[in-house]
């Protein structure tokens, strides 16, 4: 069995709102080129993303909404007509063939699912996916179709699997959470910057699921200005306890790379260090609990030059058990892309130390995050004692 496959098709790059929009899948090209430069990604590892069928999209979306997306992408819808569906807004503008491009991203995640569940590879990665803000009948926050929701329903129907969804994007994984809020067989875990200031505003610790699904939604809202140590402390404790509690058959991780200090849309102070550690633990726990079944998708990440290519490369390197690189980035890669980049590259795999001025209220922020973690996990710690 292969260790991992890298799902990608050039058509995924068709998911493009405009030249100036912050969501930019050029980061896929930059990441793949970086990996190829260090000889860590070979053509044989790459499998093409299929296109999700309409029937598959219906697992997570209203037919009426799918129709709206189709019409928008074919020039048959005005912005005003799309607005109540979140289409044609400043965040999610209309672009040509938006349905086709979105279905291709969903298809990529389904391809990854099939590879893992049919035992063709232990793990699979679709960096084009991870669009966690998409709702049943509405686009939101750059996301049109919610590939993770479709994939989890597909995992349930086709493979009868119990799924743990882990979301480390700096924004709350609201779309996926609400999709499975009442479902006891899907557990969602999201670590994100608190919604007090940041989009979407949800993801409070009190959002725990509803009805039968009560106790299978976990949220860990961390404070603005949270740094590596506190982020990783929350992540590790949350992951271990939730895996132990839920005992999933398969884990799907969303790997947004927007919790980095450089990210323009968030206010967390992560460095490359967290992007090395996040997949390491997910990988380890997938083997401990799920026989290795680990599907990973991309997500946010708006510094596409300095942050995303390095962060996502590490994800792939971890999946394939390749040695973590250190020191200089390949000169050829820097030379090729620096002329296009509006910012000077960080020329090494690690971030420089220090990357930023010390945070005045570091100790208080750490204390607050630790308190939040205890409250968020209280519900399963209690059960354990009984």
């Amino acid at each position, binding site marked *: 069995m292969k260790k991992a496959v890298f799902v990608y098709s050039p058509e995924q790059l068709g998911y493009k709102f405009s030249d100036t929009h*912050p969501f930019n899948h050029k980061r896929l090209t930059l990441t793949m080129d970086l990996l190829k430069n260090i000889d860590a990604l070979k053509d044989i590892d790459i499998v093409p993303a299929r296109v999700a069928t309409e029937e598959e999209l219906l697992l997570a979306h209203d037919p009426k909404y799918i129709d709206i997306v189709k019409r928008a992408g074919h020039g048959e819808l005005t*912005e005003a007509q799309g607005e109540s569906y979140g289409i044609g*807004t*400043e*965040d999610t503008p209309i672009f040509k063939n938006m349905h086709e491009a979105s279905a291709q991203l969903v298809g990529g995640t389904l391809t990854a699912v099939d590879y893992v569940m049919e035992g063709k590879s232990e793990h699979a990665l679709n960096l084009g996916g991870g669009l966690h*803000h998409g709702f049943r009948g509405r686009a*939101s*926050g*750059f996301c049109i179709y919610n590939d993770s929701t479709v994939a989890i329903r597909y995992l349930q129907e086709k493979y009868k699997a119990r799924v743990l969804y882990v979301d480390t994007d700096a*924004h709350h994984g*609201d779309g996926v959470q609400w999709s499975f809020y009442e479902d006891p067989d899907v557990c969602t875990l999201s670590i994100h910057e608190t*919604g*007090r*200031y*940041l*989009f*979407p*505003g*949800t993801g409070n610790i009190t959002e725990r699921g509803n009805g039968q699904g009560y106790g299978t939604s976990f949220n860990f809202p961390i*404070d*603005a*200005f949270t740094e590596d140590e506190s982020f990783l402390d929350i992540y590790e404790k949350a992951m271990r306890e939730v895996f132990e509690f839920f005992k999933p058959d398969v884990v799907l991780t969303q790997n947004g790379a927007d919790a980095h*200090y450089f990210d*323009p*849309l968030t*206010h967390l*102070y992560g460095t490359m260090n967290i992007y090395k550690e996040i997949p390491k633990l997910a990988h380890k726990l997938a083997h401990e609990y799920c026989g290795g079944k680990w599907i990973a998708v991309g997500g946010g990440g708006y510094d596409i030059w300095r942050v995303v290519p390095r962060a996502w490369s590490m994800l792939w390197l971890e999946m394939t058990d390749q040695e973590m690189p250190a020191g200089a980035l390949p000169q050829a890669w820097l030379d090729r892309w620096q002329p296009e980049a509006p910012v000077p590259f960080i020329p090494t795999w690690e971030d420089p130390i220090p990357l*930023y*001025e010390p*945070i*005045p*209220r570091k100790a208080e922020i750490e204390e607050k995050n630790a308190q939040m973690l205890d409250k968020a996990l209280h519900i399963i710690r209690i059960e354990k004692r009984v």
Partner: protein
Amino acid sequence: MIVEEIMNEEPYTLAPTNTVLEALKLMREKKVRHLPVVDEDHHVLGVITERDIKEALPSSLQDEPNSAVFNAAVEEIMVKNPLVGHPLDFVEEVALTFYESKVGCLPIVSGGKLVGIVTTTDLLYTYIELTGATEPGSKIEIRVSDTPGILFEITKIFNAHHANVQSVLVYPDSENTQNKILSVRVKTLNPLAMIEDLRKKGFDVLWPNLPGVSL
């Protein structure tokens, strides 16, 4: 916003002759802490709260239904002639009543009859909704001078970006009474272009702000 829009229109009620034990059971079953006591014509006679019952008990440890208090009629321990509200009261008036009289609920009366009930929890939820925190959005805080027309200048910028404003709160600035702080929630994941325009127009954007500033 008026009380009618946030009140519970079908409150559970008691008759004056119901026992304290019945009141307690109803509270636990329906997960409420306040019950209006009404006569047959739905005139409000009083209010009984979980706390009234606890205070009437000889000891807080005595939770077994053998105390005489449990068999007493609610009219013996209820608050008689309670403060009431009207469906047309403004929500902020009710908030002030709660704050000043330290009551936890207000029966709403119209035409002499009970038509609803409002509790501090309902009010708190209304407040949360007013802040826009229940809908996807980014928060922007701006310090502005306290002069007419300023809000118009700001909303013009949001309008230019087709941004849907979900809520606007105006606070006094604790540092300078000449200023106000506007806290705006906008339905967008990417507020950067709007913030840039606000700054270009000379507005002092407090959040999101540059690294290292106080929280």
